């Protein structure tokens, strides 16, 4: 089975938000080997060659030379037979069988629905103003039914499209703040809440509990599912395997999945199917005996949770929320519900 794998604009510095695609070293249909240079990127600080993360075939060039691409947005799509991919290799030169085909995690009873093939270069026909409107309102045009001639999306189609509830809420919050004369910036748009918890729990229990809490608040996610990304640190860097709808798995199966995925990630490998679909992020700091860190909200995620170390019997659970989506009261309720279920 082959996978579509988007090679994205990498983040090369803390302040980098976009990079300019200078040129491609490959064309559609080219066979590439892991490490082959795919394209060159220029930022305000650095020029860099981006290499193929695995052997494969170039399926599509999504961006054009000269384009300024946001970090995380695809530049090209590869088709790879490599079922399991390494994440960040960092600068570690130690030979790692990073892209070798290894067995997928042991199958668990409940089916893990693999992420659908990622088709990012799919084109949508829409009148120009519909694109503007969709972008302003956060509507994915691929989800809009086209009724115009030649299956083109018209203004009527966009106006009738369902607005993502989370984005509707964000817009309302923005409007309210703007009305009060407060300028929205990222720095004031998030808040953190902390509670001490006298309980012992493993990652699987925690992930399931948190997913269950979030499931009761579908308005806070831009997705139909709950995807919990668990940050796993290793010498290769950070891996963020995503557990989709973990609260709907048998807890023993989930525990086995978390364990096998953690092992794989520590070896620099995460199944491709687990690389996308995160709606929230969990970071366990107890490994480092830290009580808290300044958590960052990932783009398109409204929440993140850290588990901190207080004592042998007490942990500190910190919740960070995006104030564009929910208010302090929401945050308090969420944390309360999470702690109560642990």
């Amino acid at each position, binding site marked *: 089975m082959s996978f579509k794998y988007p090679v994205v604009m990498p983040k090369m510095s803390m302040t980098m938000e976009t990079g300019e695609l200078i040129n491609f070293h490959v064309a559609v249909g080219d066979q590439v080997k892991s490490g082959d240079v795919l394209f060159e990127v220029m930022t305000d600080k650095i020029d860099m060659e981006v290499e193929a993360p695995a052997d494969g075939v170039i399926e599509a060039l999504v961006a054009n030379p000269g384009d300024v691409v946001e970090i995380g947005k695809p530049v090209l799509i590869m088709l790879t037979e490599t079922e399991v991919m390494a994440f960040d290799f960092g600068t570690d030169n130690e030979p790692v069988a990073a892209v070798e085909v290894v067995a997928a995690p042991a199958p668990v009873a409940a089916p893990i629905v693999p992420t659908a093939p990622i088709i990012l270069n799919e084109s949508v026909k829409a009148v*120009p103003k519909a694109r503007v409107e969709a972008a302003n309102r956060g509507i994915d045009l691929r989800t809009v039914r086209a009724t115009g001639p030649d299956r083109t999306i018209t203004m009527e189609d966009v106006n009738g499209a369902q607005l993502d509830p989370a984005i509707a809420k964000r817009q309302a919050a923005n409007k309210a703040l703007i009305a009060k004369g407060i300028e929205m910036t990222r720095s004031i748009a998030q808040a953190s809440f902390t509670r001490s918890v006298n309980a012992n729990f493993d990652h699987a229990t925690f992930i399931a509990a948190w997913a269950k809490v979030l499931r009761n608040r579908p308005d806070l996610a831009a997705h139909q599912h709950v995807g919990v990304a668990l940050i796993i640190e290793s010498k290769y860097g950070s891996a963020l395997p995503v557990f989709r709808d973990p609260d709907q798995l048998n807890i023993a199966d989930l525990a086995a999945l978390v364990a096998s995925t953690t092992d794989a990630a520590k070896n620099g490998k995460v199944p491709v199917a687990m690389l996308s679909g995160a709606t929230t992020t969990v970071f366990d700091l107890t490994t480092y005996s830290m009580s808290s860190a300044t958590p960052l909200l990932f783009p398109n995620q409204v929440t993140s949770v850290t588990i901190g170390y207080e004592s042998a019997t007490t942990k500190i659970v910190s919740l960070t929320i995006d104030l564009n989506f929910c208010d302090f009261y929401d945050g308090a309720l969420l944390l309360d519900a999470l702690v109560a279920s642990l």
Partner: protein
Amino acid sequence: MLTMAEAVREAMSIAFDERPEVFLLGEDVGIYGGAFGVSGDMYHRYGAERVLDTPIAELGIVGAAVGAALSGMRPIVEIQFSDFTAQAMDQIANQAAKIHFMLGGALHVPMVLRTPQGSGTGAAAQHSQNLEPWFASVPGLKVVVPSNPADAKGLLLAAIDDPNPVIFLEHKLLYKIPGRDPVPEGATRIPLGVSKVVREGKDLTIVATGIMVNKSWEVCEKLAAEGISITLIDPRTISPLDMNPVFESVEKTGRLMVVQEGPAQAGFINEVIAQLAGSSSFGSLIAPIKRLAGMNIPIPYAPQLEKAAVPQVDDIEAAAREIVKNWR
């Protein structure tokens, strides 16, 4: 109510009265009164020295006018059919248009070349062309395409004032037609390079030139009765082209249709589309841009085919109705 031919004659007469250096030359403009009767009685009123009948030699006529303009005169050239400007193109495009620039602005060529254009008279392919893009694509020429008597008078007076060559394209079918608005008395100029918003509506923007403004007007009237309201814009001067009213209007209506008589391929009206497509107003479009233009064929002699070769009122009406209905 003056017809366009009468309005043009009135403008020329005012200019004759205002400035002794203004004169008219061309084939049959004198005793005969012009192939389409535009100069009329001017020969009798101003004499043979100011209304000059010339031999049938377009290159020589325009060349003489360029020379006169360089010598301080203000010639008005009439070429019987715009098709015949091909004979004079070296003087028009290589001399008149460029002298001011190639001499670093030291000399001016204050010359107006008036010529009837267009189809609909059964005069076949060599006497029926619409050659707007020929002239609009030559920097150094200003190009005026009046659609009604009032504009023709004010624009021609401004063209005669202009210190450099102006091509003034009059549609034959409009000569005998009075305009919707009366022609103002006096010598009021209409500045070149200012588009006119003929009427305002909210559903569609139509940009049309020359006779197509009149045909589009009929469509606007008809569709207004059905609740479709249309903004109609007449650039009047196609070079230089004033696009601002087009941008502003498209931002309101979201739909653009352009109409010209000349062939679609490389036609002038394509410039309107190109500028709109390259502007920020592009994001206001809620429909693909519709272009109505002549077919890419020489104008046929057979009357039915001649009619079918260029946009007619019915075509404009159907296209306007369709764009408004299909794109919401």
